[in-house]
């Protein structure tokens, strides 16, 4: 186990390093540099002297070679200094501290929701293959897979404004927006978050359900299941005890794909539902080419994904001794 | 019959052992570890041993599907004189590709499922510039007939054929270049017993008509006895005994040969079997035991065997790698009526 962890950590560091290069690449991509976009973002009436522009360039190290710039940026990031948001005139670190917790508070429960819902349905679908329930879930699964989650968000907003007169979106309903914390306010917040979780989790649930069904069907056709049945084990105990256990671990190991998808979903759905996660912040940053902010968000989300995947892998190895170290 | 068409000298193939980016270099797997033998013109030399003893690797080194780590494979070309195939670069090797070909074990994996028989058998000719266009078609048709299939089959895909037929296709492909030497890597072990006989007969017919020399890799001694003139027994990358088939079956000189032979079932209820069951596992080719590699499993092992690695040496005109070859009286198998066709 020890050597496995060491190897995985080394691999992870390499992956994070590559991610940081991708993020830096994103910073570099737009034509011109921050100073150009900064200058153009300042009201047209104000004149900026060439000297001031030069001074700004020097201040941000933009006159240095690319490699040096990357090096400077990554050293700063490693010290927790993500740079400055041009548009908002605040440090990126502050902004992240404000927005990131909610992103996680939605993503992590959503991921758990996806597996908690998809695995039982997948088991049911496989065991009762070709039953009405199986067809129903398969149908719902395909639809769920085909509806992008931001569209689902729009549909929800439409339905609630049209037929329930309610107000969807935001973390709080209007009446709680500025109210002091109370039990009712917490309930209101959890109601809004639950909606978000369902919207974001649908497509992931649909996909995972299909995988679980397929894996378990493969397993159910194995000879050892027949043997166990022949020995007179009760059907449910037999299924839960062996094939499900075998089928579930490859399903759980898809977390490396699910987690980034969940974060993606959270970010885009948050802009639809107007939730104060990093999503709307990123979108704004991107639109105004506030690249330090944009790249930092990409970097931090990706690193969190890598760490999340790593933790789930460790749990999986711990739970399933067959996985080779 | 006695001049050698192929001389293998101290052939070695080690896998791995390169130093990775981090940590120590792992020990290399010595799959083939110093092999010497001559392949005589027109003979069938059997190569037997347990799975993982390196016989397939040896075969692949000879046809240069693998690049050997060391040693020589000297091919005696009638026109161009002897040449060391192992030392040639890929480019220099090209003309000699015609001379040495291979037949594979797996009748499914050895044929490209996306090609018709015409493409499969014709490709070697096209690659080597032996024929083009209609000539390819004619030759492929001839080859198909020669291996017992029909001309019309050439537009079909391999999936339309049974295992035995696929093996015939593989043989036709090997023959496409008119080689002198064919390395047969367990050509019948994946087939049903009844089909095995047909393929073996086909190989023997081809050899008789076509001046072919076979290196016949097998683990089924029954098959080996049926088709081979001589047999080389391999154990973890080395030859431990090399003798005429009849001699070896009558009286093996190496304890490992004896053990292998005793595992051959005798289809005679009168004969009482004395299986010398092998103890333990095949030695690990990464971490070989000191002394004779076979000693941990040998029932005749003495002190010397544990420390001193025996050489392959001549005993009564046969070659054997055992310190006690002269003193041991090992048991062979009762000879059936010879059926060599």
């Amino acid at each position, binding site marked *: 186990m020890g050597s496995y962890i060491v190897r995985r950590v080394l691999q992870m560091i390499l992956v994070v390093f590559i991610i940081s290069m991708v993020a830096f690449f994103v910073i570099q991509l737009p034509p011109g540099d921050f100073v150009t976009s900064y200058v153009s973002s300042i009201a047209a009436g104000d004149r900026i002297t060439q000297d001031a522009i030069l001074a700004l360039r020097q201040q941000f190290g933009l006159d240095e070679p690319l490699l040096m710039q990357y090096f400077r940026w990554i050293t700063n990031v490693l010290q927790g200094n993500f740079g400055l948001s041009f548009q908002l005139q605040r440090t990126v670190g502050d902004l992240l501290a404000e927005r990131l917790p909610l992103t996680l508070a939605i993503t992590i429960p959503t991921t758990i929701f996806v597996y908690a819902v998809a695995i039982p349905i997948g088991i049911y679908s496989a065991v009762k293959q070709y039953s009405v329930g199986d067809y129903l879930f398969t149908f719902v699964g395909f639809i769920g897979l085909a509806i992008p989650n931001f569209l689902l968000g729009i549909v929800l907003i439409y339905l609630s404004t*049209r037929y329930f007169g309610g107000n969807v979106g935001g973390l709080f309903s209007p009446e709680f927006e500025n109210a002091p914390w109370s039990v009712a306010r917490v309930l209101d917040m959890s109601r809004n978050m639950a909606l978000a979780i369902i919207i974001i989790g649908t497509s992931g649930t649909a996909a995972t359900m299909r995988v679980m069904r397929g894996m378990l069907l493969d397993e159910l056709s194995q000879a050892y299941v027949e043997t166990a049945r022949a020995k007179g084990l009760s059907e449910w105990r037999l299924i839960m005890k062996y094939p499900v256990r075998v089928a579930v671990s490859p399903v759980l190991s898809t977390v490396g794909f699910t987690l980034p998808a969940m974060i993606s979903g959270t*970010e885009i759905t948050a802009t639809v539902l107007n939730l104060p996660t990093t999503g709307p912040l990123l979108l704004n940053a991107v639109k105004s080419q506030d690249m330090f902010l944009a790249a930092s968000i990409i970097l931090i989300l990706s690193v969190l994904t890598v760490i999340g995947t790593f933790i789930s892998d460790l749990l999986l190895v711990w739970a399933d001794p067959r996985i080779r170290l | 019959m006695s001049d050698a068409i192929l001389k293998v000298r101290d052939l070695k193939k080690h896998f791995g052992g390169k130093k990775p980016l981090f940590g120590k270099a792992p020990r290399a797997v010595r799959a083939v570890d110093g092999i010497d033998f001559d392949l005589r013109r027109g003979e069938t030399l059997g190569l037997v041993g347990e799975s993982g003893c390196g016989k397939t690797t040896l075969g692949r080194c000879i046809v240069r599907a693998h690049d050997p780590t060391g040693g020589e494979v000297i091919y005696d070309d009638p026109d161009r004189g002897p040449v060391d195939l192992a030392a040639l670069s890929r480019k220099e090797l090209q003309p000699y*590709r015609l001379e040495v070909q291979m037949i594979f074990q797996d009748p499914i994996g050895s044929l490209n499922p996306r090609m018709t028989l015409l493409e499969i058998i014709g490709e070697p000719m096209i690659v080597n510039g032996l024929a083009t266009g209609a000539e390819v078609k004619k030759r492929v048709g001839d080859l198909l007939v020669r291996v017992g299939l029909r001309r019309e089959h050439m537009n079909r895909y391999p999936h339309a054929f049974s295992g035995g037929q696929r093996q015939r296709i593989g043989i036709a492909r090997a023959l496409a270049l008119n080689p002198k030497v064919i390395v047969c890597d367990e050509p019948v072990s994946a087939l049903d017993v009844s089909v095995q006989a047909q393929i073996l007969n086909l190989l023997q017919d081809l050899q008789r008509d076509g001046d072919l020399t076979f290196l016949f890799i097998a683990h089924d001694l029954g098959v080996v006895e049926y088709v081979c003139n001589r047999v080389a027994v391999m154990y973890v990358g080395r030859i431990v005994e090399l003798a005429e088939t009849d001699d070896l079956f009558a009286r093996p000189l190496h304890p490992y040969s004896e053990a292998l032979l005793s595992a051959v*079932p005798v289809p005679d209820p009168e004969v009482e079997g004395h299986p010398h069951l092998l103890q333990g596992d095949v030695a690990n080719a990464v971490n070989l035991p000191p002394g004779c590699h076979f000693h941990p499993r040998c029932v005749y092992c003495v002190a010397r065997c544990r420390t001193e690695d025996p050489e392959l040496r001549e005993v009564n005109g046969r070659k054997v790698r055992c310190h006690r070859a002269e003193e041991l009286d090992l048991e062979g198998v009762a000879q059936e009526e010879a*059926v060599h066709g």
Partner: protein
Amino acid sequence: MSEVRTDMPAEELLDEAEPRAESRAAIASPLRLMWWKFKRHRVALWSGYFLLFAYLVMATAGFWAPSTPNERSRQLYAPPQWVKIIGPEGELRRPFVYGYEMTRDLNTLRPVYTRDESQIYPIELFVRGAEYKLLGLIPWDVHLFGVSEGYIYLAGTDSFGRDMFTRLVYGARITLSVGLVSVMLSLVLGLIIGGVSGLYGGWVDSVTQRVIEAIIAIPTIPLWLGLAAAVPRDWPAVYQYFAILVVLSLISWTSTARVARGRFLALREQDFVTAARVYGAGTGRIIRKHLVPNIMSYVIVTITLAIPTIIIGETALSFLGVGLRAPTVSWGVLLQEAQKIQVIQFYPWLWIGPALCVIVIVLAFNFVGDGARDAADPFSK
């Protein structure tokens, strides 16, 4: 002692030389076998036909649309008209639509449309109308359907009174072609990178694998956003279109590369590849004739499953306002309207149309992908 029989009867030998499968299957190429197997998957087959039709419509958009995408009218925010065959007196008529009478809600100033039963616009087939270029080349003015008097808005109109049905048909042109071209681009990238990785192995492989892992770990939407931000706002529409294509494929090549690498790794150990090396086929030839054809079925499956992701990607980016932008018409651009809460609430046809189009196309691709996966390799197992 030997188990081999030498006295095989002649008939049996002959029998053995007979191909086991019936002649039809015997001469069928593997791709044809895959097709046969695919055909048995009914839903996938019909989804496939539907997609072919959708791409046909896409290529000849001008013919199917009654109008042109940027033609404005006086009917702003008109809801979809229903096609009727029963007239105001209950009589049977040829298909027609009613005209609208517009009033304004005095509180909100929103237009309110009511059916005007005195105005009946019969639908005609193959009518002459606005000129367009068929396949972008041939000027023509015949439309599949239309009205010679009045107007027809099967999917309503937008804030400029433009016909949504027309805009949906033209939107398909961009959205569907982005999906296809992007996937082709990522296919080429994936095949080359995955192929090199799988064939050369060693450190090249390790580095490629880490890069792929890194890209997979980056949540797609944020990365797409970041890359799309780099596309200058003032670029002409065509440049933007290609830039978005590249942005979308820069991420999706990883799945093709993984599949290609895995298959290449498995294939290069196959005996038929060894055989080709032994008879002297060069590396290029081996790749061309032996490796690539054998991964084609996997590639087909991967790309049918990747196209929906790309389509959703384009839609999402344009919806957020960082992908394609008006005056380009794509389903994502049309969905941008749904950024406004009033549109979601009061003019639902503006977003339900494009949303349904996206969902139906993605659904069809998923079904086809599912069927293709089942049919993928007739030789596996």
